C-alpha cells in the first residue's frame, strides 16, 4: 500500500519544529507502524536526509519506549495496543497519517518524536517502591495475599510507563500512571507501612514535575495500551484523603 505520513520534525530540544510530509510506497499491510517508519528512514538516509528519530526498543508492547501520537490518538487507532504492535493493515491505501510526539511540558521533546520521560522516574523515586533492602526479606509465604488482591495488584502493575495517559490528557496530568503504582503497592500487605507517605510524596513529585491536575476526563484510560482503568484514580484520591487526615 502507498500512504503519506506527516511527521513532526524537530532537530533538537531548543529548536522549533514543524510537520513534514513524506510519501511511503509499497508498504506491506503486515508491517508494523514502526517498521513502516524504518522503511521510510532507509530511503531518507540514502537520499541524504536526516532520518526520523523515534523511541522504540522491545517492539513487543512491553518496554513502553514507543510513543507516537497517530492521527491525534496516543499509540494510534487500535485499542489496548502500543505503537509497535499497531500494524499497517489497520490503515488504507492512500491514507494521510499524522505522527506527533507526546505533548506535555513534563515531557519535553528531545528530537523529532522522542521526548524526555524522566519525570515518571522522579515520581517513582518519591515513593513508588516498598523499602525492602536485599537480604532482609522473610520467607515468601510469611504473608499470604488474597488472590483477589494479588490479581488486582498485578493488573495495576502491568503499567508500562509509556506516558500515553499524559499525552492524551487535555490537562497533561499523570494521574493514571501514579494511581496505577499507588494501587499496585497499596493492595499488597508489604506496601502498607509506607502507604500514607507514598501517596502524599508521589502526588507532590507529580506536581513538582509540572504535570497538570486531574479532572477525571477519562481520556487516559481510553488510550492506555495496558487497559489500566480510570477507577484507580478514585483509589488514589481515597488514599490521599486518608493520608492527609492522618498526617
Amino acid at each position, binding site marked *: 500500500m502507498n500512504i503519506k505520513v506527516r511527521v513532526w520534525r524537530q532537530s533538537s530540544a531548543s529548536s522549533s519544529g514543524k510537520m513534514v510530509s513524506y510519501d511511503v510506497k509499497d508498504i506491506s499491510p503486515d508491517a508494523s507502524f514502526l517498521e513502516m517508519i524504518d522503511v521510510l528512514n532507509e530511503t531518507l538516509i540514502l537520499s541524504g536526509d536526516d532520518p526520523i528519530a523515534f523511541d522504540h526498543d522491545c517492539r513487543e508492547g512491553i518496554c513502553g519506549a514507543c510513543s507516537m*501520537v497517530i492521527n*491525534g490518538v496516543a499509540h494510534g487507532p487500535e485499542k489496548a495496543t502500543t505503537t509497535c504492535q499497531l500494524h499497517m493493515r489497520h490503515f488504507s491505501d492512500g491514507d494521510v497519517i499524522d505522527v506527533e510526539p507526546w505533548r506535555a511540558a513534563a515531557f519535553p521533546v528531545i528530537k523529532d518524536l522522542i521526548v524526555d520521560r524522566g519525570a515518571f522516574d522522579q515520581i517513582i523515586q518519591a515513593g513508588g517502591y516498598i523499602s525492602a533492602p536485599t537480604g532482609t526479606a522473610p520467607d515468601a509465604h510469611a504473608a499470604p495475599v488474597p488472590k483477589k488482591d494479588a490479581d488486582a495488584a498485578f493488573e495495576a502493575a502491568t503499567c508500562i510507563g509509556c506516558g500515553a495517559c499524559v499525552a492524551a490528557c*487535555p*490537562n497533561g496530568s499523570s494521574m493514571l500512571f501514579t494511581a496505577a503504582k499507588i494501587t499496585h503497592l497499596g493492595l499488597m500487605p508489604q506496601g502498607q507501612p509506607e502507604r500514607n507517605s507514598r501517596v502524599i510524596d508521589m502526588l507532590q513529585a507529580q506536581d513538582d514535575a509540572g504535570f*497538570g491536575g486531574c479532572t*477525571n476526563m477519562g481520556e487516559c484510560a481510553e488510550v492506555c495500551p495496558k487497559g489500566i*482503568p480510570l477507577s484507580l484514580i*478514585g*483509589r488514589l*484520591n481515597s488514599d490521599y484523603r486518608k493520608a492527609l487526615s492522618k498526617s
Partner: protein
Amino acid sequence: MAASGIVLVGFLFAHAAGNLKIFIGNEDFDHYAHWLRTIGTPLLPDVWFLWIMRIGLLVAIFAHIWSATVLTVRAKKARPVKYAHRPKVQGSYAARTMRWGGVIVLLFIIYHILDLTTHTLNPVKDSANPHANVIGDFAPERWYVTAFYAISVIAVGLHLRHGIFSAARTLGQQTAKGQRRAQAIALVLSVLLVVAYLSVPFAVTVGLVK
C-alpha cells in the same frame, strides 16, 4: 471542585423544587417566594437567612471558579503545545466541555440574577408577584429568552453529568461497578434537573401556565 460542586448541586435541586410550585398555582409560587425571605424568623430578622444562603452560595461559586481556574492554568502550563492533528474526544464529551460549559453557566447565572432577582432585565419588574415576572419573561413573543434559557440549562446538565461523577471519583469512588453506578446516577440527576428547569419556561411559552 468536588466539595463546592456538591453544595451547588444541592442548591440546584432545592431551586428546582421551588420552581415547580408554579404548576400547583401562581399563588403557591408567590407564597413560596415570600416564604424564602422569612425563613428563620423570628429567630433571625427578615431576609437574613436568605442572605446567609446567598453568601454561602457565593462562597461555593467562588471556590468552584477559583479551583477551576487553578486547574485550567495548570493544564495550560502542562500542555503548552497543541497537537497539529486535533485529538478525537475518546472519553466523554461532557468531560471535555467542562470549562467552556462552566463559563456559559456563569454568564447565565449573572443574567438570571439580573432577570429574576434584581429584575433589572425583566420586562415586568413586579416584586410583589414573582409569578408575573416569570410569565412575562417567557411570553411566547420572547421565545428567544426561552431558547437562551434552554441552551443554558442544557449546558448546566452537561456540566453536571460529568461533574457529579467526577466529584464522586475525587472523593474516592474506586470500583469499576461503582463507576458505572456513579455515571448512571450523574446522568439521571442531570436529566431530572434539566427537565425540571425547562418545564417552567416551556410551559409558559406554550401557554400552559398563564
